[in-house]
C-alpha cells in the first residue's frame, strides 16, 4: 500500500474510533445537566444519584474522546501536510477557534464537575455540568463547520497558490453546515437515548433499582423520540441538500449510472462498478429519487456516467452505508415511539426491554455508516471540487506510515478494550446503593 492509502486508512481508523465515544458525551452531558437541575429544584436525591451514575459513564467516554481528538488534530499536519498548507487559512482557524472557545471550557469544567461535589453549592455544581454540555455541543458545532467546508467550500478565493478566506460569515452560516450540525447532533442524541434505554432495560429485566432505571428510561425515551422525529424529517431535507451541492455523491449513494428523469430508488441492488451497472435489482420505487432530490417525481437526476471517471466516488460503500443509515433511522423512530407509548408499563414489557438492550449497538452502526457515506461519497475530493485527496497527502516514506498505522491499531485496540471493560462493569454495577456515601 502507498502512503496515500495508508494515510486514508489511518485517518479513517482514528476518526471512527474517536466517534465511537464522542456522540454519547454530546447527549449524556445534556441529560445529566437536566437530572442535576431537577435535583436542585426538587431536592430529590434520586436525581442526584442518576446524575452521578450516568456521569461515571460519561467520564469514561469523555477521556477517550479527549486523547483521541488530539491525534486527529495533529494528523492534518503529519499525514495531510499539503492539505494543511492549501486550506490552513480557513480550516486551521476553525479548529483553533474550537479549541479556544469550546474545548477549554469543556475540559476545565468537567474536572470541576467530577471532583467538585463537596466544594461547590448544589446550584453552582449544576451550573458546571451545563457549561460542559454547552461547551461539548459548541465544540461539535465548530468541528462540523470545518467538515461542512470540506463538503461544500464557500467564502474563499484561490490566491497565492492556496485557498484564502474572504467571507467568514458565509462559512459559519452556510445551509449545508447547519444541516450537518442538526443531523450529527440529532444522531448523537438518539445514540445517547438508546444507550440509556438499553442499560436501564438491563436492570429493569433483573428487577433491580426499578424506580431509578424507570425514571432514566422514561427520560431517555422522550429525548430519543424527539430527535428520532427530527432526524427523519431533517434527513429528508439533508438528502435534497446533498443533491444540490454534491450531485456525484447523490448518484453514488443511489447507484444511479445513467441520467434519468423520474429517477427511482431501489431497496436493494448490487452495484457492478466495473461495468457501470447494477445487478440483482429489486424493490424499485419509481420517481422516489427525483422526489428526494428535488421534491418533484418528474425531475431529472444526473447519473454517474455524466461525471468524468476521475471525479466519481466509489459506489458500493456509499450505497450500502446509505441504506444501513436510513433503515436504522426509521427503526429508531419506531422503537422510540413504541417505547414512549408503553413508558408507564415498562415492567410489563420484558420482550421490548430485551430488544432495547440488544439495540444499543445499532445507533453506533448508523452513525459510522453516516460518516462513511459523507466522507467516502466526497471522494476523490478532500475539499469538494477544490482539492483532490491524492494531492493532499504528505511526502512521507511508506515505512513511517506503516509503523504509525500499526501503532494506532495496537494502541486503539488496547484503549477500546479498557474502555469497554470499564463501561460494562460500571453499567452492570448500577448506582451506589447506600446514599450516605453520595453526600
Amino acid at each position, binding site marked *: 500500500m502507498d502512503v496515500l492509502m495508508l494515510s486514508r486508512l489511518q485517518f479513517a481508523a482514528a476518526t471512527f474510533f474517536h466517534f465511537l465515544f464522542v456522540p454519547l458525551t454530546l447527549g449524556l452531558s445534556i441529560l445529566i445537566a437536566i437530572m442535576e437541575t431537577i435535583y436542585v429544584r426538587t431536592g430529590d436525591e434520586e436525581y442526584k444519584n442518576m446524575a452521578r451514575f450516568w456521569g461515571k459513564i460519561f467520564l469514561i467516554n469523555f*477521556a*477517550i474522546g*479527549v*486523547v*483521541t481528538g*488530539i*491525534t486527529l*488534530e*495533529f494528523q*492534518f*499536519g*503529519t*499525514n495531510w*501536510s*499539503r492539505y*494543511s*498548507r492549501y*486550506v*490552513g*487559512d*480557513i480550516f*486551521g*482557524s476553525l*479548529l*483553533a*477557534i*474550537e*479549541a*479556544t*472557545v469550546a*474545548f*477549554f*471550557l469543556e*475540559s*476545565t*469544567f*468537567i*474536572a*470541576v464537575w*467530577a*471532583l467538585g*461535589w463537596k466544594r461547590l453549592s448544589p446550584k453552582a455544581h449544576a451550573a458546571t455540568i451545563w457549561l460542559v454540555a454547552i461547551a461539548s455541543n459548541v465544540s461539535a458545532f465548530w468541528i462540523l463547520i470545518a467538515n461542512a467546508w470540506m463538503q461544500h467550500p464557500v467564502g474563499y478565493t484561490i*490566491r*497565492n497558490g492556496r485557498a*484564502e*478566506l*474572504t467571507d*467568514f460569515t458565509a462559512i459559519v452560516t452556510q445551509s449545508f453546515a447547519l444541516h450537518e450540525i442538526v443531523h450529527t447532533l440529532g444522531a448523537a442524541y438518539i445514540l445517547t437515548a438508546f444507550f440509556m434505554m438499553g442499560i436501564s432495560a438491563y436492570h429493569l429485566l433483573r428487577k433491580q433499582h426499578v424506580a431509578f432505571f424507570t425514571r432514566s428510561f422514561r427520560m431517555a425515551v422522550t429525548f430519543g423520540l424527539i430527535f428520532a422525529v427530527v432526524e427523519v424529517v431533517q434527513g429528508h431535507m439533508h438528502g435534497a441538500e446533498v443533491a444540490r451541492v454534491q450531485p456525484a455523491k447523490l448518484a453514488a449513494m443511489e447507484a444511479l449510472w445513467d441520467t434519468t428523469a423520474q429517477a427511482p430508488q431501489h431497496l436493494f441492488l448490487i452495484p457492478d462498478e466495473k461495468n457501470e451497472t447494477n445487478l440483482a435489482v429489486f424493490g424499485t420505487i419509481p420517481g422516489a429519487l427525483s422526489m428526494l432530490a428535488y421534491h418533484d417525481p418528474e425531475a431529472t437526476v444526473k447519473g454517474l456516467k455524466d461525471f468524468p471517471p476521475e471525479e466519481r466516488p466509489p459506489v458500493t460503500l456509499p450505497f450500502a452505508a446509505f441504506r444501513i443509515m436510513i433503515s436504522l433511522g426509521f427503526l429508531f423512530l419506531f422503537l422510540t415511539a413504541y417505547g414512549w407509548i408503553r413508558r408507564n408499563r415498562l415492567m410489563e414489557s420484558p420482550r421490548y426491554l430485551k430488544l432495547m438492550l440488544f439495540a444499543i449497538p445499532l445507533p453506533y452502526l448508523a452513525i459510522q455508516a453516516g460518516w462513511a457515506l459523507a466522507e467516502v461519497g466526497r471522494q476523490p475530493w478532500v475539499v469538494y471540487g477544490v482539492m483532490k485527496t491524492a494531492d493532499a497527502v*504528505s*511526502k*512521507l516514506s511508506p515505512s*513511517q506510515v506503516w509503523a*504509525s498505522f500499526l*501503532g494506532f491499531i495496537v*494502541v486503539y485496540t488496547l*484503549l477500546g478494550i479498557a*474502555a469497554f471493560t*470499564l463501561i460494562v*462493569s460500571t453499567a452492570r454495577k448500577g448506582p451506589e446503593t447506600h446514599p450516605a*456515601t453520595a453526600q
Partner: protein
Amino acid sequence: MLESIWFVLWGVLWAIYFMLDGFDLGLGALMPVLARGENDRRTIYRAMGPFWDGNEVWLITAGGVTFAAFPVAYAVMFSGLYSALMLVLFALIFRGIALEYRSHLASERWRKTWDTCLTVGSFAAALLLGVAFANIFKGIPIDGEGVFQGSLLTLLNFYGIFGGVLFVLMFTVHGSLWLTLKSDGELHARAARLAEKLWIALAVAAVGFLVATWYATRLYDNYLKEPMLFAVPIVLIPVITIAALAFIRVGIVKRRYWRAWFASSVFIVGVTLFGVAGLYPNLLPSSLDPAFSVNVHNASSSPLTLRIMLVVALVFVPVVLAYQTWAYRLFKSRLEDGESLHDEAY
C-alpha cells in the same frame, strides 16, 4: 506586523503549555520514585486529577494556532517530525487515560498497569517534547519544498537529546514542587528533598544547555545583531530566566514552596521564550539552507484570517485564563493524608 504579533502569541501559547502541563508530566514521571504505597499514589493522582485535562488543551490550542496562523509551519513541522510526534501522541494517550481510568476498578493488576502507563507516558512525552524543540532551535533538514530529509535518528543528535534531558529536569523539578504544595507528612518531605536534588541537576543542565546553544544554534544572533532594538524586552528574558532559576533554590531552602513553584513556572516560560525570541523571524530554520527556512513571512495565513483569529484570541484567552485560575484556586488546598482513602474519585 500581524505576523509578528502572532509569532509572539505562538511562543506564549507553547510557553503556557509547558508551564502548566509541565508539572503533571514531571509528577507522572516521578511517581515510582516518590510513592511508597497505595496512599501516596492516590495522593499523587489527586494532585494532578483536576488539572491535567485543562492543561493539555493548551497543547491543542498551541497546535491549532500553529495551523491557523502559520499553516506552512504546521504542515512542515508535523510531517517533518512525523515519527517523534506520533510517539508523543501515543505517550499522551496512555498517560491521559491512566489518570482517568486507574481509580475506576479496585483490581491491583489494573492499577499497576495504569501506573506504568502514567510513568512511561509522562517521561516519554517530556523527553520527546524537549528533543523536538531543541531540534527546532537548531534547525531541521527541510528542503525547498518543506520536505524533511532525515529520519527519527536525525533528531536524536547530541543537542536534541540535551534538550530532552533539560525538559525532563525542568518538568520533574516543577512536578515535585507541585507535590510539596499538595501533600503533607512523609510524602511532602520526600518531594521537597527530591526537588532540592533535582534542582542541582537542572542548574547544571541549564548552564550547559546555554553553552551548547552557542555552538549548536543561531539563537544568540538576534540578541547580538540588534542590541538596541532588542535591548529592553528581549534581554530581559534571559535575565529573568536565570533569576527565576535562582529563586527556585531560595524557595526550596526557605521552605516557601509556593514561591519556588511560581519561580519554576517563570523559569519554564523564560526558557521557552528565550528560544522563541532567538528563532524570530523563523518558525523552523532549515539546517540545509537558510533560504529554505520557514518564517513568519512565508508561512503565515492571510491578513483577514490573522485579524479574525486575533480578535478571538484577545477575547477568549483572558476568559480561559480567568476560569482556569478559578478552577486552580478551587482545588488548591493540601490533600489530607487519610482523605485519599475515602475520596469519591481516587
